[in-house]
């Protein structure tokens, strides 16, 4: 139908997964057009409206959007998941950027050369337990509310997605963060999220050797 957003990406989490989570939380149905070969990517790139020749691309409301953050902010604004004013939005943005920084480290880990992997993993663990998780736990503790900002769901969606990935990496990393565990449970139990977290949804599994190979072929790296 004309209404559904269309997501262009390859068959992996990467930079598109956060957009899936946000659309799912907003209860928005969406279609996915998977890029499966470098020819698919070339076809997409030849469309002149593809701004910077990169994916993710999201077709929504008559526009072809690129740049993950621009897309996320547009969707969050549209579905009232972006705070009630500029100051709340600034806090939301600050938290989202922190989530994205740690998320990026975790996302890029499979691309790390084997001899550097252990060092990278140690760094990720250290940043998770000494920097990022304590920062978010402290925010929740400071106001005692159910959500990070303004007592209303917003970037909690992105944080909870990250918590799932941290847990996949090593479940003991969440051990000392009771409020974050509570947030993860609470957000996961929201009806729209519950559906999305069930098998058979559009959510992507962790990367595999096979999907990394496919990405290398498509993006030629």
């Amino acid at each position: 139908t004309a209404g559904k957003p269309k997501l262009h990406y390859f068959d992996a989490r990467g930079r598109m997964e956060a957009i899936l989570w946000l659309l799912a939380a907003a209860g928005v149905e969406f279609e996915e057009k998977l890029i499966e070969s470098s020819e698919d990517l070339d076809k997409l790139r030849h469309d002149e409206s593809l701004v910077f020749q990169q994916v993710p691309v999201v077709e929504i409301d008559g526009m072809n959007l690129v740049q993950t953050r621009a897309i996320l902010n547009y969707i969050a604004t549209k579905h009232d998941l972006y705070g009630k004013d500029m100051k709340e939005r600034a806090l939301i943005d600050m938290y989202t950027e922190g989530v994205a920084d740690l998320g990026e480290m975790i996302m890029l880990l499979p691309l790390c050369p084997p001899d550097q992997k252990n060092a990278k993993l140690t760094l990720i663990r250290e940043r998770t337990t000494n920097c990022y998780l304590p920062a978010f736990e402290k925010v929740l503790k400071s106001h005692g509310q159910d959500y990070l900002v303004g007592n209303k769901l917003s970037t909690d969606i992105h944080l909870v997605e990250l918590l799932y990935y941290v847990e996949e990496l090593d479940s003991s990393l969440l051990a000392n963060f009771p409020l974050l565990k509570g947030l993860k449970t609470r957000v996961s139990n929201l009806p729209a999220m519950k559906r999305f977290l069930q098998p058979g949804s559009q959510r992507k599994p962790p990367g595999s050797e096979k999907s990394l190979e496919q990405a290398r072929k498509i993006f030629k790296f």
Partner: protein
Amino acid sequence: MAAKPKLWYFHGRGRMESIRWLLAAAGVEFEEEFLETREQYEKLQKDGRLLFGQVPLVEIDGMELTQTRAILSYLAAKYNLHGKDPKETVRIDMYADGTLELMLMVALAAFKPPEEKEESLALVLKKAKTRYFPVFEKILKDHGEDFLVGNKFSWADIQLLEAILTVEELDASVLSDFPLLKEFKTRISNIPTIKKFLQPGSQRKPPPDSHYVEVVRNVLQF
């Protein structure tokens, strides 16, 4: 009267320069505290002022904001440089985010060993000439307006001018195939607040040199 925004960073461009540009373009006076020692940085951390232990830090409107994009987005909204509706805002975000990525590549190149630095800067030039500048040239050509979005000066225009001037420092001829961007550069540079910022003695910072790199390495210990 509201206090002036206060910027905490090193005495150089890095991740703070785009913020300086936005404030200057909006005609907002701001103060700066420069990080020169490890002790200053550790104090900021100990005092709990850096959410994720990082600078830039901007004190504004009673908030201690970190994360470059969060700060830029707040300032853009506050000073009416972020479009009139969500569709304009998302276009501004797309364009600004693209050029910001280019600026960060340049900022990070300063910290690489000489051969890698050359490669990085060559890649910046290549991306500017083949990916970013053609897009902006086409946008300006398609609508024929003075500014990138909504026929109104916005954050996207400021960010693009900064990108053009920064890339020109690497290769002065980079705009030779982009006539509309050349006109854009002149036009935006002549906006009074920006003209002022481009004059010597403003708070605009010079390109990174070895002293700057040394201070940053020393303060952040890497």
